[in-house]
């Protein structure tokens, strides 16, 4: 029974982590511009992240190390600096985008411009990290995050042509806007396969004192939780395809077009639901990434880390998240368009994948860490596939960024 509660909580938590401004914005854009045709990208991304999250959890449960710890240990300090800086940078941009997402939701709710909200949002995030415990943050955000299920409800109520939805699960070549199509696909993959998801998950496993008995739990949470998150993304895409298309919007280039998504289904409450979903999903992600920045540095340099410690007991750890939240609020305060930042940071995330995923190939096959629980053929094939995908994405992202994003 306890395990069951644990699993359901874990699933809900991973939804909170999975669904953030990146997956919402990319899914909405893809739906508006290309109908159901990019569903395959969400599916592919979800499958990849299931494998990576499962491995990160398994690694932490069996070895007692987080992924970041182990990268430093196995590959040495000099090699560690590359993924460290890449991830710090990507996290910084994504966190900024998340703060922007909450700020936009606040703008919808109050009418006051989003840039005024960036600092209050960052402050609120910081306050929760400062005062809250890991369990409180994880579970609180997770349960509130269930509100995003309204997208799935809306998708079903709009009665899409399920055959067309299923056809979208198979990759196809675009009829128009080739550059934009591939750029969207890359952004969706970046939004789904975020390095912070699996590095955060492995830190969470240590914070929750997982051990070998949690392997089954881990598998269930990784598989079901990420599937759940992916389903909501697909929901957003379907709603966007049906609603925005019907209103003649075939290109989302402004956040203000988004609240339209839920209005045809739920009326005024659709507007409220959208704001709540956007705010909660982005707020949860901002919390997780803030923590992740601190985990990353503290684990990499071997300092004390843990969200349950009082700031006074762990000044370095708390100092890092304080600083990174403050820095991440700056671009939004200066008025940088959160939607553009989101899409850009998702593409950069995809390009940074090889740096964080290549270590999985070694760590998860290292008997000194994972013993008999090392990767099987399928998991290794998945890692190699993701690495190859990451390399391709890294190579194509930059030209697409220049030509497709404009």
């Amino acid at each position, binding site marked *: 029974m306890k395990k069951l509660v644990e699993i359901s909580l874990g699933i809900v938590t991973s939804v909170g982590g999975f669904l953030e401004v990146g997956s919402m914005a990319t899914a909405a854009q893809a739906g508006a511009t290309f109908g159901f045709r990019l569903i395959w990208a969400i599916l592919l991304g979800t499958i990849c992240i299931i494998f990576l999250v499962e491995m990160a959890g398994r690694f932490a449960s069996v*070895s*007692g*190390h987080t992924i970041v*710890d182990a990268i*430093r*240990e*196995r590959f*040495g*300090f*000099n090699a*560690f*600096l590359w993924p460290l800086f890449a991830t710090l940078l990507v996290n910084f941009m994504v966190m900024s985008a998340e703060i922007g997402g909450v700020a936009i939701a606040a703008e919808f709710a109050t009418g006051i411009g989003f840039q005024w909200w960036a600092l209050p949002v960052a402050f609120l995030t910081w306050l929760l990290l*400062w*005062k809250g415990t890991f369990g409180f943050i994880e579970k609180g955000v997770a349960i509130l995050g269930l509100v995003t299920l309204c997208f799935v409800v809306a998708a079903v109520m709009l009665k899409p042509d399920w055959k067309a939805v299923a056809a979208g699960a198979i990759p196809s070549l675009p009829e128009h806007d080739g550059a934009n199509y591939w750029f969207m696909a890359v952004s969706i993959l970046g939004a789904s396969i975020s390095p912070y998801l699996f590095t955060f998950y492995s830190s969470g496993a240590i914070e929750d004192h997982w051990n070998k008995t949690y392997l089954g739990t881990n598998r269930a949470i990784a598989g079901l939780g990420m599937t759940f998150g992916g389903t909501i993304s697909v929901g957003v895409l379907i709603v966007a395809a049906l609603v925005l298309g019907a209103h003649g919007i075939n290109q989302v280039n402004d956040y203000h077009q988004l609240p339209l998504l839920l209005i045809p289904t739920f009326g005024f409450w659709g507007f409220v639901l959208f704001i709540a979903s956007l705010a909660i999903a982005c707020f949860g992600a901002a919390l997780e990434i803030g923590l992740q920045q601190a985990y990353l540095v503290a684990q990499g*340099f*071997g*300092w*004390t*880390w843990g969200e349950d410690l*009082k*700031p*006074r007991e762990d*000044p*370095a750890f*708390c*100092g890092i998240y*304080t600083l990174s939240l403050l820095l991440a609020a700056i671009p939004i305060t200066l008025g940088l368009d959160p939607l553009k930042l989101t899409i850009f940071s998702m593409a950069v995330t995809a390009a940074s994948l090889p740096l964080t995923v290549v270590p999985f190939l070694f760590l998860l096959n290292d008997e000194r860490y994972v013993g008999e629980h090392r990767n099987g053929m399928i998991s290794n094939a998945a890692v190699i596939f993701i690495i190859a995908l990451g390399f391709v994405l890294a190579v194509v992202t930059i030209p697409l960024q220049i030509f497709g994003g404009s």
Partner: protein
Amino acid sequence: MDLLRDLLDKQVVDRKQVKIGKVDGLVAELRPDKPPRIVAIELGAITLARRLGARPGRWMAWLAARLGGERHAEPHRIAWKKVRDIDVDIKVDIDVRRTAIFDWQDWLRDHVIGRIPGA
């Protein structure tokens, strides 16, 4: 024991289980006609910077001396005889509060973090 695999870059915890850093460096004594002997592990920014090259090492040493005084001009060393256990973590028989390793964290606590309400 394989030094690079089993020792270097591993987590160091003190006698009270406080995580004090990673094994950033390993110091060996060269003796005539006898194998080199490990005498200490090193921790800290200066050691790490030196691993990136001679010049970053010099810069970091200068910076540390400027900020922390003479006490911080050299990397922190923990003598090999203090190392108790080599497992997932490296356990050392010292009390981090009696060393200079966490001076900067103390400073951060006393001057910044501690002044924020609720810390």
